[in-house]
């Protein structure tokens, strides 16, 4: 498993990657929240926010097909989950399926939920495509998330790779002994492997903790990166936030 494919445009120089990570995170979050919370039927507002994401995509020099490909997985899930809206929203039937009927308000809601999801999702995908995980963590620290959370995440990042290696080794070993025929035995196998991984995670954590103490760790993880804010960056972020806000207000007005 790898996160590497996620941030492959983080190193492409562009106005977007020049911004401090915290600006990127705040910007993407504001667009996602703005889009996700649009009142039902606010199509022009959804289109405006979509255009905003498209503009940022161009600025970041991220190829549109890549963005769409990244979105397809989560989008498939959204489609699946929102299909129910077609029939569960009461109203005029437009298509009788025998047992149930697709209703007109159902179709409208289905379409709009999908539109909100697409815009919010594209903002999120754009963020991870242009921001490396360590930078994202740095942004979260600056946003004053509980220190426990950011520290746990910093350590979890490296550990996850080690655990996935162990996981794969364990699964391979189990398979080579022909384990895992039938659902029950596969389940037992998976639970056994998960338990072994958890144990190793804790053992590794103990050793890592000793390594941290040996290097003077006293309970605080200091950060290294410094990002310089320039006037144009502040202006860009302010403009973005302003546009999202105006769109949200107009959509309700």
């Amino acid at each position, binding site marked *: 498993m790898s996160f590497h494919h996620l941030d492959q445009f983080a190193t492409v120089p562009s106005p977007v990657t020049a911004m401090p990570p915290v600006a990127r995170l705040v910007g993407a979050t504001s667009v996602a929240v703005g889009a996700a919370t649009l009142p039902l039927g606010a199509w022009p507002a959804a289109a405006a926010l979509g255009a905003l994401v498209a503009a940022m995509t161009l600025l970041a020099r991220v190829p549109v097909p890549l963005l769409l490909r990244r979105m397809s997985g989560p989008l498939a899930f959204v489609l699946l989950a929102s299909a129910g809206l077609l029939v569960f929203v009461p109203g005029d039937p437009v298509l009788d399926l025998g047992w149930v009927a697709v209703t007109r308000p159902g179709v409208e809601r289905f379409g709009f939920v999908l539109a909100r999801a697409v815009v919010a999702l594209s903002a999120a995908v754009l963020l991870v495509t242009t921001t490396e995980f*360590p930078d994202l963590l740095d942004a979260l620290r600056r946003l004053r998330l509980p220190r426990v959370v950011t520290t746990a995440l*910093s350590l979890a990042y*490296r550990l996850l790779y080690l655990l996935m290696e162990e996981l794969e080794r364990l699964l391979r070993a189990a398979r080579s002994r022909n384990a895992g025929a039938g659902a029950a035995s596969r389940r037992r196998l998976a639970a056994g492997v998960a338990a072994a991984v958890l144990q190793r995670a804790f053992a590794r954590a103990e050793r890592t903790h*000793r390594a941290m103490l*040996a*290097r*003077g760790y006293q309970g605080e993880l200091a950060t*290294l990166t410094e990002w310089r804010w320039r006037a144009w960056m502040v202006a860009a972020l302010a403009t973005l936030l302003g546009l999202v806000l105006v769109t949200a207000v107009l959509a309700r007005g």
Partner: protein
Amino acid sequence: MTAPLVEIRELGFHYPDGTPALDGVSLAVARGERVAVLGPTGSGKSTLLQHLNGLLRPTAGGVWIEGVTVDAGPGLSDIRRKVGLVFQDPNDQLFLPTLMEDVAFGPLNDGVGPVDAAARATAMLRELGLDGVGARAAHHLSGGERRLAALATVLVSRPVVLALDEPTGDLDARGRMRLVDLLRARGETLLVATHDLTLARALCGRGVVLYGGRVVADRELGALLADRALLERYGLESPSGE
């Protein structure tokens, strides 16, 4: 006469679960000495090294660094800066998202500002030939690079004593020679726990054999390695090619 740099006196230790690990270990290391701590797996080498900077607390006897006793007191952070411990598994020591952060971790904890810490980390990485990989995560490094990186995280704090636990576990012959050259050139006082006698011969002047938690031999290394009966008795293989 000044106190030895490292002094271990009648050190005894058993793990909380009751496993005895060390039993009356005494050892003095002078400044500039390079000592190999030899012994088969389970003889207590790792346990001994972890006493040098107070990660483990003796159940008997004690450890002194430059005459200062290693205990939970206020001197501990100072001792931890003086004694650099390189763990057996580099993965235990490289726990942050990027190599730069890992190397800067020690200086940052010592109160060095972010800019200086970054500069020191960069310089350290360059010295070990790791320039250019600082922004990478440890899982994108080769085994040898990872070993060097773990060393960098410790050297960057400029320790007086360097304690290495099985440093050649995953190195080939060339990687081993590179490590030896590097450590000889730097000149820190060394304690190297290993059962790799080739490494010991290339790097150290003195050998201490640990067996069942006791010191069973402490001699000039050439003499020690020449004593076939001793090596055999304590489960150590003589260096290859002899």
